């Protein structure tokens, strides 16, 4: 069981690293702080990408064999009843894990572009786009939390890897918000 929990521990550690980086970045002014904030955002996105991929793998294994060794299928904290519920485990036929993978890829592109050239003419636009793209994900997170707590078979359940993906988005959104603040307060560089 300890081996099975390793990915979850790594994802949680990734969220911790992102949080620490964002916290340090807040206390630093100028370009150095902005770069660190972008790094923090990229850390959150990285965790979001990997946890989304993990939930997609769980989805596939549940379909193939009816069970998955990648996450528990019993109890309150489990994936089987959440990712395995045919009524709620997809968005118009696209598994939620795949949806997350695509969404975090978009965020990765925006933040990586900013990180590679934070002085570009389009950097302000990309900062705003990042914020709005993150905001657009929030209703989906709220919906999915509602679904796992009230709608899935045997609810409530909490899917730990789904929760990691949700927290990644929230972490990203916080960094995007703080970056916008830095820009508005002329603390970008």
């Amino acid at each position: 069981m300890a081996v099975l929990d390793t990915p979850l521990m790594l994802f949680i550690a990734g969220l911790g690293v992102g949080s620490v980086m964002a916290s340090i970045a807040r206390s630093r002014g100028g370009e150095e702080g902005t770069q660190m904030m972008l790094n923090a955002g990229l850390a959150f996105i990285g965790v979001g990408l990997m946890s989304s991929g993990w939930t997609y793998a769980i989805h596939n294994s549940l379909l193939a064999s009816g069970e998955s060794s990648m996450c528990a299928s019993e109890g309150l904290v489990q994936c089987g009843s959440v990712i395995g519920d045919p009524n709620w485990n997809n968005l118009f036929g696209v598994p939620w894990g795949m949806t997350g993978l695509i969404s975090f890829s978009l965020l990765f592109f925006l933040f990586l572009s900013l990180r590679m050239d934070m002085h570009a003419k389009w950097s302000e636009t990309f900062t705003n786009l990042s914020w709005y793209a993150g905001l657009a994900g929030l209703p989906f997170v709220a919906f999915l939390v509602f679904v796992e707590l009230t709608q899935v078979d045997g609810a409530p359940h909490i899917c730990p890897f789904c929760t990691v993906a949700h927290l990644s988005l929230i972490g990203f959104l916080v960094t995007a918000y703080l970056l916008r603040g830095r820009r508005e307060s002329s603390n970008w560089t």
Partner: protein
Amino acid sequence: MAAPKGKDEDVRLMAALATFGVTSIVFFSVILLAPPVKVGPSEGELAPDFTAQAYSGGSWNDFRLSELFNKSWEDGGDGNWILIQYIDTDCPYCWTEGGKMSELHSQWGQDVTFVTVVLELSIPGHESSTAEIEAFRDKTSHDGCKGDSENCADRPGSAHSWLYVDDLAGRTAGDWEIPGTPFTALLQPDGIVAWNHNQPENHPSGEEMDGALQRLVPDDHEHDDHDHDEGGGGS
């Protein structure tokens, strides 16, 4: 002091390539870890799963199609095949097929789990209800079957003893790509679609469900290895 200028080259192309690379790595890692399963109603695909309320003769209960699947089943092994039928209780062809289904069940009911899913087609006069589903299955008195022109008690065939699933809202019809009713498909015990009524090009000429059952379901199938309850009516 002048504000710092951006780089001369546009880094967004590099960022896009890097994004594509990272996403591809994650995606292909997933494929290696757990390959995607093709889900759909076509032959060779995993049958679309669904949950709904099902009537077993005395009561309505939660039903999940995949709970009938035996994922460890291997070709030639034991396990119940699944005949899934989509009907509309007001459709005249479904009315007639009621008799045929009774015959098939009397012949194959020991080897094959029958499931009938009831839709409500968007046609005037095809309004249905759970009461009508019960009456159609049980052959009890209810005016309103076959386009409201017949009493359900007069349906051809005997009373059906297998599960009738309520999908009057049509939630499963999209996944199953139901073009009209009646529709039938035969699933292997592991849930893979073995025969789809709408793919005649894959079947011997003119083959219907009875022919498919004879061709696909093994003759030496063990009758005493039933994993699944077919409902309160018994079979």
